[in-house]
């Protein structure tokens, strides 16, 4: 499943509020990626966008991780596909 080419992938930072997305890939390395993985944000996981003002941080949620606020810099590095 991983590595498949998908047409509608985009960074989390540009997804509109209320959408549910599936994480495809997290760009970058080291501590940050590990931290995201630790709170349950790994490829294949679905999250809902609770709040996204467009150029600030993004608030996301799912049952496993709860509600998290991701800084804009982080949200840009999370590549997702929109599920609904």
């Amino acid at each position, binding site marked *: 499943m991983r590595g498949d080419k998908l047409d509608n992938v985009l960074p989390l930072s540009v997804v509109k509020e209320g959408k549910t997305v599936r994480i495809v890939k997290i760009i970058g390395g080291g501590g*940050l990626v590990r*931290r995201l993985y630790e*709170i*349950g944000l790994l490829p294949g996981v679905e999250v809902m966008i609770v709040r996204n003002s467009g150029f600030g941080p993004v608030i996301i949620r799912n049952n*496993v991780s*709860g509600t*998290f606020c*991701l*800084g*804009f810099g982080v949200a840009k590095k999370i590549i997702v596909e929109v599920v609904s």
Partner: protein
Amino acid sequence: MSCHESRAGSTLKARQKAIKIGIIGNPNVGKSVLFNKLTKGKAWVGNWPGVTVEKKVGKLTLDGISFELVDLPGIYGLTAYSQDELIARKFLLEGKPEIVIQVTNAINLERNLYLTIQLLEMGFKLVIALNMADLAEKEGVKIDVDGLRRELRTPIIPTIAVKNFGLNQLIETIKEQLDKPAPFFKIDYGPEIEEAIEKIRRLIDSPIRRLGLKIDPRWLAIRLLEDDNDIIQRLRDMGFEDIVSEARHIRDELQAQLNESVEVLIIEKRYEYLLNLSRKYVRRKTAEKSLTDLTDGLDKVLTHPILGLMVFASILYLLFKFSFDVASSLTEVIRVTFSQHIHDLVKNSLHPEFISSLFVDGVLNGVGTILIFIPNLLFLFIGISTLEDTGYMARVAFLSDRLMNRLGLSGRAMIPLLIGFGCNVPAVMSTRVLGSDRERRLSVFMIPFMSCSARLPIFLLLTLAFFRENQLIVILSMYFLGVFIAVLTALLFNNLFYRKQVAGYVMDMPPYLNPSIRNILAKSWERIRSFLMKAGTIILLMSVVIWVLSVTGPEGYIGPEALRDVELLSRSWIASFSRFLEPLFKPLNWDWRIIASLSFGFIAKEVVVSSLAVLYNVGVESLPTVLSDSLTPLAAYSLMTFALLYTPCMATVATMRNEVGLRYTLLMVLYQLLIAYTAAYLILSIGGMVI
């Protein structure tokens, strides 16, 4: 006192030392509340992530067994990514707790279980407190506690720490666990990884056994595969360089074989395992009127780019009004009672004059200073605690993210800065939750310019003397000036040292909760108490020291008359020291008495006002009148500016040294003195031209 021996005697024979218990958990799960309830103790608590920045220790004695509870910082995993995680892990590795209590949030159990798995892999005896059980039920989360308990072979106790529910059972369980062995726990990471783990385990097994280390070799092997820098460093320090490089070799081979990051695969396997647990034991229904819906709705307003900022500014106004206007009438009562009744009473009942002067001019002046500012501080603390308890503070971080990004910081850095308005010491300490060293240093540089509560007395006094009409505005202008300088500092240092990097962060958003009045009052009282302990003792001590330095001089004992006679006072130690500094402050036109009190302020800002009172030989109550005779309003404003911007106190300097090292601290102290002097001078000269 007496009925314990028979019960505890046989199983816990000859336990001399207290049994060490670590309390660990994700941020914002109620660890600190649980810790406080168990120890009836001190750690302070808040509904935003990252309150516990250092481990706090408390004692608990039960049936004659004494326990030492250690409250650890909130962490998500044991990867040493932030300072917090390093502290927690250092304790687990070196502190050797006999039992670890993991406090979990029942609403998002899965995320908490990730830490559980890591703790079990480390080989700890674990007791899980399934906290916020009531909220979870309301949210429609149903957990099969028995099933989970059997699967993890670990006791799980549902608790509601704020309501004391389940705490007795938790304590009973801890006692039962003392003599049981740690459960056997193992996750199957799949054939390839397991093979690598086994290879490394065999490498380290015998050296570790030889050294008698109580570390699970399998866990160590997994950490090496995960490329854990802290562990690698520890092994190197123990002289296992060859094992480290061998393990790295095995890891590289595995990586090539799998064509995928080994760390990622290991974390994925853990999540696979716990999602499987979750499928079996956690049921979720969509609740009709859930807390989540309410929280989302409120967030739509409170984090709205325009309305949200308006609400934030308005709340700040209300907070300041509450802590200054409302408290002022109480301050008045204390002022009047103190100066009229107690002063005279003591003065007339003590002999000889030497003793009476020591008490009235030294001790009582100190006590008066402390008491007069209690109402302001109490109201400020009540306000801040309320905002923390509702969960609003995390939204402040969200709102300020964009702004803070301009300074190269993340919204999270706003929280330490806001704490700085209360006290700089915990503010500097709370920067540990920030991800990078760069961000921590930048915020540590900014914090001292946040006007802390100890600086408020100076502003109150001087505004009372010179700006009685516009007191609130002038004080607010001080706060804004501080923020302004802090912003400039961040921009300057970010450009100078870090070339405008931007921070990335991940922060837990707690749901909005109704604040509990008991919790707020308890927390505010705790903060007031720590102010009294920390500042109170220093103020009292310094008041007496100043008194001694005023009644003695290079020629010997002068006598209490010195306090009433400026002529005599000018022969004291205080005078000679300040005169020595006088040329330096010539451009600011300061009296040696002001220089003297500001030098004492280097030790603690709290003593500036009381030492002024001693040096001008009046009670704090009548100090405004005396000062308004010897300074112009402009000079007073310039003095306030200096007091705002120079080094906050010895305690802050000491904390800074711990957090960012001696070199940066010295740089900062010099920088602050320079800025303070320049700003005070500019205000005096530019203001002089304008007026």
